[in-house]
């Protein structure tokens, strides 16, 4: 069985292999090249000195000219090598061009080796025994000394040593001396042994470079990791501070909130309650905590219903908003509250607790009821006397009761018109009230829009005549069916036509068009030749009590509610309303409705 202590080194050995492999090969090559070039000054100086000594020793042979030639070659090569070394030192692209520098170094090594090989091949046969021994020794020395210098790249060393030994071996083998022939057999073995050593050393160097880089990278990684860790610690601390601050804020919100805020456990027991909840229900927080909400906050008759709602809330885990429920206070008074319930769910999808917010809407409901009652009464109480007023004036003005004097008729006509205006205003206000309270019900039916438009024109001709404006359709209207509330659509048409008539110049024509448009819709347009809609009024034209110029109200009548009612009515019928045209060049009010198949 492996104990942790024995397992650890195995792991670290495996890691170290991985580590070495993780080093960047480009950087390793560059390191090797740098190592090779760093030995170059020693090699150049050493090689030059040995060459000088050798040239001095060998000067007395038969071929002095050749010795001089060789010495010159050595000098040239030394200069070339020094140049190469200088070039490398100055290079700014040592890493990127490492392979190229290695190639040049290999060539220089081969050239040095070959120069010595030339010396061995040429001077060995031509000299006396002592000099031959000297030469053999020098050659052996050079081959051996090449190992530490070139072993970082064994192929370079192999080329260098081959350059020295191969010509020399050839000369030994072909000298005609048995001893030399035997030595010639040993030299390749010596060569192979040296290349083998260089190869091993190359491996050792390589491994060393890899480790150095891997370690460097490890250190970098470690430093980066450390920095990241520190950064994360800072962020974590900041996050903690923020959470703490928002927690304090939340607590403050709940504490100061005018809305009652409770926290319930999933079983429906109160976990906490804010001061507004205490005020609303008359219990202290301490009295409420731990007790079931159903027993504390609800009338006894509603408990089963509340429990069922609670179970479905916990099951669905979905928040509930705007829930209106009857509640009881400590003093037994029944109130109506509007509640929002938000289950808090943990990552395992279980409900931890439920945040419940509620406000007392008893007074609001009572106010709404009173407002409705008031509106309804107002409607009746205003319409009844108006029936008498308008009815009487209409009978007088119609002439069925006999001729009346001109001035009187003028005044009774004014009285009738203003009675009608008052009635329009009451009707509009009642419509707005109904729309806003959601009490307006539409009675849609499939009807021919063309027919309805014609009917609306007939109904409003009398009104337009009063402004000396003619209402007309642009040609025969197409037969288009829509699903709409007949009475309310006539109300919309009446509104648009009466507006157009009121704002058109005397003697002009209000054109009504009906066309099919894209998206299966139909558009009715009412085009007038009026002054157009002022730029600054365009945004609020469909708002309530909207009139471009309040003096129009007095001149032309109207409540300023008509277009806002039209807009809402059309929206309720799935349509929309809009207008186009510029100030000073007439206006087209249009509405669109979905066409009925």
């Amino acid at each position, binding site marked *: 069985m492996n104990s942790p202590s024995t397992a650890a080194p195995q792991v670290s050995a495996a890691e170290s292999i991985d580590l070495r492999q993780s080093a960047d090969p480009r950087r390793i090559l560059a390191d090797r090249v740098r190592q090779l070039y760093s030995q170059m000054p020693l090699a150049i100086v050493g090689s030059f000195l040995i060459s000088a000594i050798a040239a001095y020793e060998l000067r007395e042979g038969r071929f002095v000219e050749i010795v001089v030639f060789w010495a010159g070659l050595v000098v040239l090569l030394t200069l070339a090598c020094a140049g190469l070394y200088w070039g490398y030192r100055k290079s700014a692209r040592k890493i990127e061009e490492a392979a190229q520098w290695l190639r040049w170094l290999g060539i220089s090594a081969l050239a040095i080796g070959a120069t010595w090989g030339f010396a061995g091949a040429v001077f060995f046969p031509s000299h006396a025994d002592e000099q031959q021994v000297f030469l053999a020794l020098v050659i052996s020395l050079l081959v051996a000394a090449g190992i530490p210098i070139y072993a970082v790249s064994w192929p370079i060393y192999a080329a260098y040593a081959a350059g020295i030994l191969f010509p020399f071996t050839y000369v030994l083998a072909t000298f005609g001396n048995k001893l030399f022939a035997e030595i010639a057999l040993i030299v390749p073995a010596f060569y192979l042994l040296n290349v083998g050593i260089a190869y091993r050393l190359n491996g050792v160097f390589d491994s060393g470079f890899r480790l150095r880089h891997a370690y460097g990278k490890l250190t970098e990684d470690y430093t980066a990791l450390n920095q990241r860790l520190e950064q994360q610690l800072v962020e974590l601390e900041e996050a903690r501070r923020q959470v703490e601050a928002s927690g304090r804020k939340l607590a403050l919100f709940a504490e100061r909130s005018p809305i009652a805020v409770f926290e319930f456990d999933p079983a429906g027991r109160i976990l906490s309650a804010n001061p507004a909840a205490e005020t609303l229900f008359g219990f202290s927080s301490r009295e409420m905590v731990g007790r079931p909400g159903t027993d504390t906050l609800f009338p006894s008759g509603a408990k089963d219903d509340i429990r069922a709602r609670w179970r479905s809330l916990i099951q669905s885990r979905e928040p509930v908003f705007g829930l209106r429920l009857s509640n009881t206070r400590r003093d037994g008074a029944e109130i109506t509250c509007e509640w929002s319930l938000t289950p808090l769910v943990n990552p395992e999808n279980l409900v931890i607790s439920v945040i419940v917010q509620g406000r007392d809407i008893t007074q609001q409901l009572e106010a709404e009821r009173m407002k409705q009652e008031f509106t309804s009464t107002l409607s009746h109480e205003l319409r009844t006397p108006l*029936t008498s007023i308008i009815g009487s004036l209409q*009978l007088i003005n119609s002439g069925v009761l006999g001729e009346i004097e001109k001035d009187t008729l003028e005044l009774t006509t004014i009285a009738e018109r203003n009675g009608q205006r008052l009635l329009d205003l009451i009707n509009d206000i009642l419509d707005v009230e109904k729309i806003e309270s959601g009490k307006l019900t539409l009675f849609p039916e499939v009807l021919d829009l063309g027919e309805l438009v014609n009917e609306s024109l007939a109904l409003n001709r009398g009104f337009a005549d009063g402004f000396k404006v003619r209402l007309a359709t642009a040609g025969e209207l197409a037969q288009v069916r829509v699903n709409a509330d007949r009475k309310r659509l006539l109300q919309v048409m009446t509104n648009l036509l009466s507006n157009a008539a009121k704002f058109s110049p005397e003697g002009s024509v209000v054109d009504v068009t009906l066309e099919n448009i894209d998206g299966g819709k139909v558009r009715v347009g009412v085009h007038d030749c009026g002054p157009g809609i002022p730029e600054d009024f365009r945004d609020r034209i469909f708002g309530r009590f909207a009139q471009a110029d309040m003096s129009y109200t007095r001149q032309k009548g109207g409540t300023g509610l008509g277009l806002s009612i039209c807009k809402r009515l059309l929206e309720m019928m799935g349509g929309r309303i809009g207008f186009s045209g510029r100030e000073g060049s007439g206006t087209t009010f249009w509405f669109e409705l979905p066409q009925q198949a």
Partner: protein
Amino acid sequence: MPAQALNRICYVEDDEDIQRIVRMSLERVGKMTVEVVGDPLVAIDRIIAFKPDLVMLDWMMPGMDGPTLYRKMLETPETKSMPVVFITAKASQRELDELRKLGAAGTISKPFSPKDLPEQLRAIWQALP
């Protein structure tokens, strides 16, 4: 459509001003014979006595409202088949629909135009089966 033209109208209405306007409208404009009843509690007897072609009922009246009176008429053999038109300033569309279902011939909303009232009644009369 009934065989004879609309002529005799009985109108139950508590507001004296409106009583007078409706009477004038129907008599002067519509050339009809009108019986006006101010108290809904005695209305059934007066309707039976007058034998109108059509009965007009106000919606809101002290003592008994129009719909209640209408139900009473439906329970009374002599009045149950008389066409009834409601004149109202208030009723919701749902209430009006309910009355139509019970058999009311039509509704006219307040304020109505006395100039057009006889025509409106004749249109309702002609639409009757």
